[in-house]
C-alpha cells in the first residue's frame, strides 16, 4: 500500500507540472483569460437564473424545475467554455516546445516520452480543476430553488472534469503533430468539433436506437440520472483518452522504432472494450428483443472495426513506413524479402495484426452472434454477419495497402495521409453521390434503389443491418470483390514498387556525386580496424 502511495506521489510530482504551473500561471494573459471566462460564465448563469425565475413567477415552472434549469444551464455553459478554452490552452503544449526550440533538450533528459505527456496532462488537469472549482459558487445557485442534490453536482463536475481531460489529451496529441502553434490551434479546434459532430454518426448504423447521447459530449446538461449512460459515456471517454494518450506519446518519441507496438496492443484492447460496451448497450437497453439488439449491435461492432482501426491503426502506417521503408530497403540489400515491406514491424507486425483481427472477430462471434442466433426474431442469418465481417476485413486490408503504397512514394507524410483520407472519403461519399445523381428526376426512386450505394461502407453496413434482399446482397458481394481486387492489384503494385525503389537506391548509391571528384582518402584508421574507402574512390595516394 505504501509503495502504491509513493508511486502515486511520484506521478503527481512531475517536474513538467511544476514548470508549467510556474510559467503559465504567472502570466497576465492567463489571469485575464481566466477572469473573463469566469465573468462570462457568471453572466450566462445569471441570465439563465433570471429567465427561469421570471418563468416561474408566471406559474410556468415549479421551483424544482427552475433549480434544475439553472443547473443544466451551468453545466451546458461550462461544457461550451471548456470546448472553447482547452484546445487553445493545450495546443502549445508540445508544438510550443518545438517552436521554442526546447523540445530537443526536454527529450534528451531522463524523462520518458510518456512522462512528458503525463506532465502536460497533469498541467491541463490542474487548469481544468482550478476553473471548475472557481465555478462551484455558481453551481450553488441551483440550491436556491431546490431540485438539485449535492450528489448530482458532484457527478456533473466529475463528468465535466472527465470531458475537460479528454479534450486536453486530444489537444496534446494534436499538438504533438505540429511544430507550429498556430497550425496546432486550428487543427485542435477542427478535431474537437469534429468529434462533437461524429458522435452522432453511430445513429446512422443503428435502426432506431440512437446512440447520439453515447458520445464524448453526449450527456452534458442531462442524462446524469441514468447510471448506464454515465458508465457507457465514461467507458467511451476512457477508450478515446487512452487512444489519444498513446497517440501523444508516439508523437513525442523521437524514433519511429517501436512506435507501432503500443498502437497494436491498444487496438486489441479497444476491440475487447468496445465489443463489451456495445453488448452492454444491447443487453440493458429496451428494444424489440435482446437477441435482435445484439444482432444489430454486432453489425455495429463489425462496422466499428473499420471505424476504430482506420484512425488508430492504418492512418499511422504512412507515417511509420515513410521512415522505416528506407531501413527495410537497406536490409533487403542483404536479404531480399519483398513481402516484409507490407508491415513495417516485419514478422512481429504481421503477428500482431493477425492476433488483433483474430481476437476481434473471435469476440464478435463468441459474444455476439452464436448465443443469440437461435432466438432472432427477424430473418437475419449467419451469412449476413459473415458478409459484414468479410466486408470489414477487405476494407481494412485494402486501406492498409493504399497506405503502404503511398509510403513508398517520396511524398511528404502529410500529403500521404491527406491522400489516404481523401480516398477514404471518396469511397464513403462517391457511391451516394452517383446514386443521388441517377435518382434525380425519377419519381418515387430513392438513392437506396440504386445498388451502387452498397459499395460505400455506410451503405453496405446499413443494408446488412436491415437483413438485405438478394439484390442488395449481390451489390455487397460486388463491393467485397471490389475491395479484394484492390488488395490483389495494390499488393502486386507494392511488390513491384519495392523492387523499383530498391533498384533506384542501388543506382543512386553507385553514382554518388562524390565520385566525380574523389575526396582525400582516409588517412587515419577509424574505430574498428580497417580504414573505409568510399566506393569507387581512387587508390590511396592520389
Amino acid at each position, binding site marked *: 500500500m505504501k509503495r502504491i502511495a509513493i508511486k502515486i506521489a511520484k506521478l503527481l510530482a512531475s517536474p*513538467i507540472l511544476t514548470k508549467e504551473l510556474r510559467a503559465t500561471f504567472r502570466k497576465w494573459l492567463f489571469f485575464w483569460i481566466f477572469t473573463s471566462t469566469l465573468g462570462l460564465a457568471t453572466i450566462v448563469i445569471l441570465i439563465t437564473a433570471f429567465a427561469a425565475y421570471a418563468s416561474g413567477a408566471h406559474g410556468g415552472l415549479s421551483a424544482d424545475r427552475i433549480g434544475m434549469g439553472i443547473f443544466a444551464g451551468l453545466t451546458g455553459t461550462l461544457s461550451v467554455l471548456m470546448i472553447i478554452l482547452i484546445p487553445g490552452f493545450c495546443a502549445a503544449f508540445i508544438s510550443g516546445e518545438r517552436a521554442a526550440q526546447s523540445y530537443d533538450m526536454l527529450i*534528451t533528459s531522463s524523462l520518458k516520452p510518456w512522462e512528458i505527456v503525463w506532465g502536460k496532462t497533469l498541467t491541463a488537469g490542474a487548469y481544468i480543476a482550478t476553473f471548475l472549482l472557481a465555478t462551484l459558487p455558481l453551481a450553488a445557485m441551483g440550491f436556491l430553488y431546490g431540485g438539485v442534490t449535492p450528489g448530482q453536482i458532484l457527478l456533473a463536475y466529475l463528468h465535466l472534469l472527465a470531458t475537460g481531460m479528454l479534450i486536453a489529451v486530444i489537444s496534446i496529441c494534436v499538438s504533438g503533430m505540429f511544430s507550429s502553434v498556430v497550425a496546432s490551434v486550428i487543427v485542435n479546434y477542427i478535431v474537437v468539433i469534429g468529434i462533437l459532430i461524429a458522435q452522432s454518426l453511430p445513429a446512422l448504423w443503428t435502426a432506431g436506437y440512437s446512440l447520439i447521447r453515447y458520445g464524448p459530449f453526449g450527456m452534458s446538461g442531462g442524462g446524469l440520472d441514468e447510471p448506464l449512460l454515465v458508465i457507457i459515456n465514461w467507458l467511451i471517454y476512457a477508450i478515446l483518452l487512452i487512444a489519444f494518450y498513446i497517440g501523444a506519446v508516439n508523437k513525442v518519441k523521437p524514433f519511429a522504432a517501436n512506435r507501432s507496438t503500443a498502437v497494436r496492443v491498444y487496438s486489441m484492447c479497444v476491440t475487447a472494450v468496445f465489443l463489451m460496451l456495445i453488448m452492454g448497450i444491447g443487453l440493458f437497453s429496451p428494444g424489440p428483443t435482446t437477441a435482435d439488439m445484439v444482432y444489430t449491435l454486432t453489425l455495429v461492432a463489425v462496422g466499428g472495426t473499420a471505424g476504430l482501426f482506420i484512425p488508430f491503426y492504418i492512418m499511422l502506417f504512412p507515417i511509420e513506413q515513410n521512415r522505416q521503408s528506407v531501413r527495410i530497403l537497406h536490409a533487403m540489400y542483404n536479404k531480399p524479402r519483398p513481402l516484409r515491406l507490407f508491415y513495417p514491424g516485419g514478422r512481429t507486425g504481421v503477428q500482431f495484426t493477425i492476433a488483433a483481427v483474430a481476437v476481434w472477430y473471435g469476440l464478435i462471434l463468441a459474444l455476439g452472434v452464436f448465443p443469440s442466433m437461435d432466438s432472432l426474431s427477424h430473418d437475419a442469418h449467419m451469412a449476413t454477419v459473415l458478409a459484414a465481417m468479410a466486408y470489414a476485413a477487405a476494407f481494412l486490408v485494402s486501406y492498409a495497402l493504399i497506405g503502404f503504397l503511398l509510403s513508398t512514394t517520396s511524398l511528404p507524410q502529410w500529403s500521404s495521409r491527406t491522400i489516404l483520407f481523401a480516398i477514404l472519403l471518396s469511397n464513403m461519399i462517391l457511391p451516394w453521390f452517383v446514386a443521388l445523381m441517377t435518382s434525380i428526376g425519377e419519381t418515387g426512386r430513392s438513392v437506396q434503389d440504386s445498388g451502387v450505394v452498397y459499395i460505400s461502407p455506410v451503405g453496405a453496413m446499413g443494408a446488412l443491418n436491415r437483413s438485405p434482399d438478394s439484390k442488395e446482397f449481390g451489390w455487397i458481394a460486388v463491393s467485397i470483390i471490389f475491395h479484394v481486387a484492390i488488395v490483389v492489384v495494390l499488393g502486386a503494385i507494392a511488390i513491384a514498387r519495392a523492387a523499383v525503389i530498391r533498384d533506384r537506391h542501388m543506382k543512386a548509391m553507385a553514382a554518388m556525386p562524390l565520385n566525380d571528384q574523389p575526396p582525400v582518402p582516409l588517412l587515419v584508421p577509424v574505430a574498428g580496424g580497417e580504414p573505409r574507402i568510399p566506393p569507387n574512390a581512387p587508390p590511396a595516394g592520389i
Partner: protein
Amino acid sequence: MIQVRNLWMYFGRFAALRDVSFHVKQGDVFGFIGPNGAGKTTTIRILATLLEPTQGRAFVAGKCVVNHPEAVRSVIGYMPDYFGVYRGLTVREYLDFFAGAYKIERAKRPKVVQNVMELTDLVQIADKDAATLSKGMKQRLCLAKTLINDPKVLILDEPAAGLDPRARIELRDLIKELARMGKTILISSHILTELSDMCNTVGIIEQGQMLVSGDIKSIMASINPYIKFNIKLGGQPGNVTAHLAGMAGIVRAEQTDNTLVVEVDGDESVVGVVVQTLVGRGVMVLGVEREQRNLEHLFMHITQGRLA
C-alpha cells in the same frame, strides 16, 4: 567513450551521412569540424538519441543510441545549436526543472543547481527571468543545464555560435575547465581557432563523409611530414636556391623575390645549416619563421569546399 560505425542517414533520397565512422576516447576533447551542411548536426543528433540512423550504429559509453536511448541519455549532456528558454522561469527555476527532468532527488536539487551555477558563473543572475538573458548568458545557462546531471559525455553543437569575442573566450575557458574535470567532450564548430585551443582529437566531415579523424598531431604529420620555414632575405639576394642544391634534409626550396620557402625533412637543425650556408655565401638573412600548422591549415588542406 563514443563509437560511430558506418553511419548512413537518409532524409528522403538525400544522403546526409555516408558511412561515417569515428571514435572518441574517454577524456578526449573531440572537435567535429566541417562546413555548413556537412552532416555535423545530423551526427550529433544521432548521438543525442534524437535521430535514428538509416544504417550503421553509434554507441555512447558502450550503449547503442538506438536500442538503449534512455541509458545513453543518462550519461550525456546535450547542448543543441539552437535552443529556447522558458518564459516566466528564473535561471534557478529553469535549472531546477531540468534537475527534476534528470530525476535528481528533490532534496539534492538545490545543491546541484547551486553547484552548476557556480561552475558556470550564473549565481549573480540566479533570480533573473531566463528569457531576458543575453545570448552569451543563455549559452551559459544551456551549458549549465547540460551539466546538471553530471554527464560523462558532453555533446556540444556549435556552442559558440553567435557569441561576442568576450563571451566566446569565457565559454572556451569553461569548456577547458570541463575537460580538466575529465569529461569526454564532442564539440562541433566551424570556428577553427576556438577549437584548436581545446581539442586534442578532431574529425573533419564534408558532404556527409568523414574525411579524416584522430589525433591532431598524427593527422598533421600524415598530411605533410615536413617542416616549412619562411626565410626573409635582405638586399639583392639573387637566386639563392642554387646554393642549397644537394643539401641533405632539404625537400623543397622556392624563392619569391626576398622570401625563401624551405621544406625540411628532419628537425630545426637543418634550417640552421641553411642559414649558415646562406650567410657564408654573403646573403643577408633578416629572419626565419617556422610556419605554424593549425586546424585551419588542416581543414583547408583536407576539405574541398564542396557543398552538400
